[in-house]
């Protein structure tokens, strides 16, 4: 048991490294105090550098559709994690956990993405100073 726990804790320590690899600082764009969950229908995907973007139609409290823009890491970074362009299918309902833009717009950092099939993928930019 001790050995298993040591390995687990070591894994957490590795995952918590502070690499500086990102295109911009998390804090330059997003508010770390505004953690949110957005659930919506995928309407558009831009698998581009320096970040991928995907767009959701989200029902607000009144039932009206509101458009959200979700920013993730670069295509190369996501691919290295096994998150591929084909994982995002138009029309899918997906859940995005992340942080809202500081300017209050419907833009968010897609830190954790739950795909329609239930898989959870990491969407954040490693080393941008944001929550890992």
């Amino acid at each position, binding site marked *: 048991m001790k050995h298993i726990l040591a390995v*687990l804790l070591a894994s957490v320590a590795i*995952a918590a490294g502070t690499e500086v690899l990102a295109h911009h600082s998390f804090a330059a764009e997003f508010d770390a105090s505004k953690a949110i*969950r957005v659930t919506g229908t995928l309407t558009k995907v831009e698998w581009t550098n*320096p970040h991928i973007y995907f767009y959701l139609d989200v029902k607000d409290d009144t039932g009206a559709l509101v458009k959200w823009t979700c920013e993730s890491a670069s295509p190369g970074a996501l691919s290295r994690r096994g998150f591929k362009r084909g994982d995002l299918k138009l029309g899918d309902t997906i859940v995005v956990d992340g942080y809202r833009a500081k300017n209050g717009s419907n833009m968010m950092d897609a830190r954790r993405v739950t795909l329609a099939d239930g898989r959870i993928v990491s969407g954040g930019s490693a080393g941008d100073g944001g929550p890992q």
Partner: protein
Amino acid sequence: MIARLSRSTIALLIAGVAASAILTSAQERPLQEPDRKSTKPAPRTASGKPDLSGYWKGTRETKPGGNIGKDLPGWKLPLTPAGEAALTHNLTATIDPESLCILGGIPRHNASGLPFEILQGANKVAFLYWYSYFRLIPIDPKRKHSDDPEPSFFGEELGRWEGDTLVIDSIGFKDEKVWIDENANPHSDALHVVERWTRPDYDHVHVETLIEDSKFYTKPFTYSRTWVLGAPDEELQEYACSENNVDAAHLGFGPGPIRPDGTRGYIDPAPLPPPIPRTPNPSK
């Protein structure tokens, strides 16, 4: 103590690791690696000089990342009053130039966490960077700096060999839209950089960077760094930084908070909502 951990505590730990695995499990090719020992000598070119060519990756031991004051006590840069004012300006009135797809230049690229590639020729050496940027440095001990070099992000760079050390001496830098590191520290057009590149063994390349800037810094200081060699099939890929820079319209000034460990980022962010438990697929 470990033996007394409750089942729920262990479950939480495992859940935490599972969440971490989301980040790490598929990263077969991380952009940085732990340092390692080398058993092979540095390769040499036909002329007998060390061959610096290779795909170079930062090490996890390089801390704090992205901070040009890494080797100074408390990471405290010796700023002049003008340098302090320039730093304040960068923090409060400028967007990170790199996030706007402007060349990072030198010495910022030496403090970057991203891999880079060196291609060394007999009379010229090329440094290729992550965002599809490059610099070309002539290796010619007879060349002298211009009287009034055209300002640029990498400066007017002159290379020469001193024994097994490739020395790159650079002046003629821009003083607008430049951050000297990820933390928005400044440099002026008086910047003078002397890089001393060596390949101590097959698996490592090393630089000693001397930074002089009498306008913004009271005295010269150095930044040292070692990288490890990537796998033989690793190389830079296309990265068109300005392809779809949607974020540019949302970026604020400065890098945000600098943590006590010298890196940029928040100390205590709000936690994300808990992950959604994955339910078994009823069709299977």
